[in-house]
């Protein structure tokens, strides 16, 4: 063909990921997302407190089925997320380069780290109980066994790092059997929604992970005060005043809260994560069982 035809851009609409579907914000609001060079990238949904409420309902609904799956099966599903993410790495590298202005090698290293992190956590699925659980010696003819159980619905504020930050908070939550509502990086929300697409096609039941994009300061309080949320991960809250406010709100129904790292010692996402990421959001269940005589 000699003459040039110009093809119209097919642009992706970045929506929320709630209950396994991709709805727009209930408020119909959006905000502009700019790349590292200041250029316009896309409009992201600006989620409202009602989206947060809907996401908690979806997570609560999904929790029962997800938490009762075998740990082995949860590990398989998390490993599957890693596989699908690996298959779409080119897309993530391009998005990271646009969002953060990193070069090709840095973007590739970031995706590598995210995939490796998922694989690392997938392996923990059926091993955590062996490490933090115990067969307790007791003064009677009983078996006494302590096992970690998921706490329920956990709300998380993801760190600024768009992909590795999100994976680092979500993977430990779901691998232990929790369902979560995660507020994606406010500055770089787009890779989070693309990761939602990955999770939607990875045998992860809808509602186990719900991704909201929007303002931390707007979405944090309704999630922190929500009585149907059992845990709160503040990894991405850099404002100490907001972190304190959220922790106070979370005290009402005794949520398990994971505080953000102090500003002078920021968390190194590339280092091997501490087990505490998983153990903060599990509860120890102890059962007594008569020993056969």
């Amino acid at each position, binding site marked *: 063909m000699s003459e040039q035809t110009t093809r119209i851009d097919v642009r992706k609409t970045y929506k929320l990921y709630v209950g396994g579907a991709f709805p727009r914000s209930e408020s119909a609001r959006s905000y502009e997302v700019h790349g590292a060079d200041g250029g316009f990238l896309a409009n992201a949904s600006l989620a409202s407190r009602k989206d947060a*409420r809907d996401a908690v309902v979806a997570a*609560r609904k999904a929790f029962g089925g997800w938490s009762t799956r075998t740990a082995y099966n949860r590990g398989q599903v998390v490993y599957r997320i890693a596989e699908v993410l690996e298959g779409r790495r080119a897309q993530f590298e391009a998005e990271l380069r646009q969002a953060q202005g990193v070069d090709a090698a840095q973007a590739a290293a970031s995706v590598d780290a995210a995939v490796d992190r998922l694989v690392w956590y997938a392996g923990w699925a059926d091993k955590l109980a062996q490490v933090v659980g115990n067969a307790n010696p007791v003064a009677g003819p009983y078996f006494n066994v302590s096992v970690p159980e998921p706490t329920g619905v956990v709300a998380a504020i993801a760190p600024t790092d768009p992909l590795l930050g999100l994976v680092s908070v979500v993977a430990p939550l779901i691998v232990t059997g929790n369902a979560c509502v995660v507020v994606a990086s406010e500055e770089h929300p787009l890779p989070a929604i693309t990761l939602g697409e990955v999770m939607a096609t990875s045998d992860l039941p809808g509602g186990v992970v719900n991704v909201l994009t929007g303002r931390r300061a707007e979405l944090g309080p309704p999630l922190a*005060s*929500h*009585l*149907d*949320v059992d845990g709160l991960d503040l990894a991405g809250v850099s404002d100490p005043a907001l972190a304190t406010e959220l922790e106070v709100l979370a005290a*009402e129904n005794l949520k398990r809260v994971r505080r953000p790292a102090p500003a002078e010692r920021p968390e190194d996402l590339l280092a091997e994560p501490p087990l505490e990421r998983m153990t903060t959001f599990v509860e120890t269940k102890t059962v007594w069982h008569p020993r056969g005589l």
Partner: protein
Amino acid sequence: MLAAMAARPTLDLPDPGDVTTLDAAASDTPPAPPAPPEQLAPSRSDAELRAWLHGLPGVDQVGAERRAAMLGTRSIKTTAKAYALDLAISMVDLTTLEGQDTPGKVRALAAKAQRPDPTDRSCPRTAAVCVYGDLVGVAREAVGDSGVQVAAVATAFPSGRASLEVKLADTRDAVAAGADEIDMVIDRGAFLTGRYGLVHEQIMAVKDACRRPDGTSAHLKVILETGELATLDAVRRASVLAIDAGADFIKTSTGKVQPAATLPVTLVMLQAVRDHRERTGVMVGVKPAGGIRTSKDALKHLVMVHEVAGPDWLDPAWFRFGASTLLNDLLMQRMRLRTGRYTGSDDVTLD
């Protein structure tokens, strides 16, 4: 279609309000609902009823759906929402109609009906508890003189497939055991095959069976089971038929058939009771049941009651919700308004 509608006999009646809006899409000269052949007739023949019911103006389905959708977009906030939530709670017929019902479950339900939110004394009680006939005695004893009514489903609920004697015995049993309200089902098989006279007769017979020895009478709610009636035209005919036969309430569904209560169906039934009052001055209640699970659904229904039937129906005596899970959502919304915090299923009872 137009010619057929124009050819219908019309009576000189006052402007029927919403019917005008609805039917305007189909006809420029809206046909007014024809009056029944004769007032207070003891019983009516199939032919007489067919001529009357099939002469009713047709329902514009697209228009009804659009109007229901439009009324559903009203925004109800702050004090209006608080009022509407309390009103909705006071309209709930707290229902348990399972094969696994036990006296214990009915007692728990009755306790919840009397004090839906034990942490808040300002929370209104529900209108009634609705149970199977054999559990009426238990429910009666449990609600006592709290003002919560006891409603019983009768007449071979939910299918209605039994002989008239069985249906009447079922009704008398429930009334004798202390039921304040009887929820009967119509014979949909007879209705759909055009044996309107039979349906009419059965409703009148059951109404008669609702009488107590002291001369008072249990309230009769007639379940049309709109999910099985297929069209809105049939819903309008069944509503008019049930009202004419003496129903105190018309109720959408048993809750055992999908779809149950939908907004357009309730709209048509509200029009029927409104038209009936315009014609005769007698008010009849409406009870959507089944499928209303969220506060939002309930508020949409209340908006429609206000806009279609009028504010007189915004009263537990004239409008009810047949529901089980709806109450929990209403309570959660109420707590949210009071405390500013969202609540979850841990804060309400499982039932």
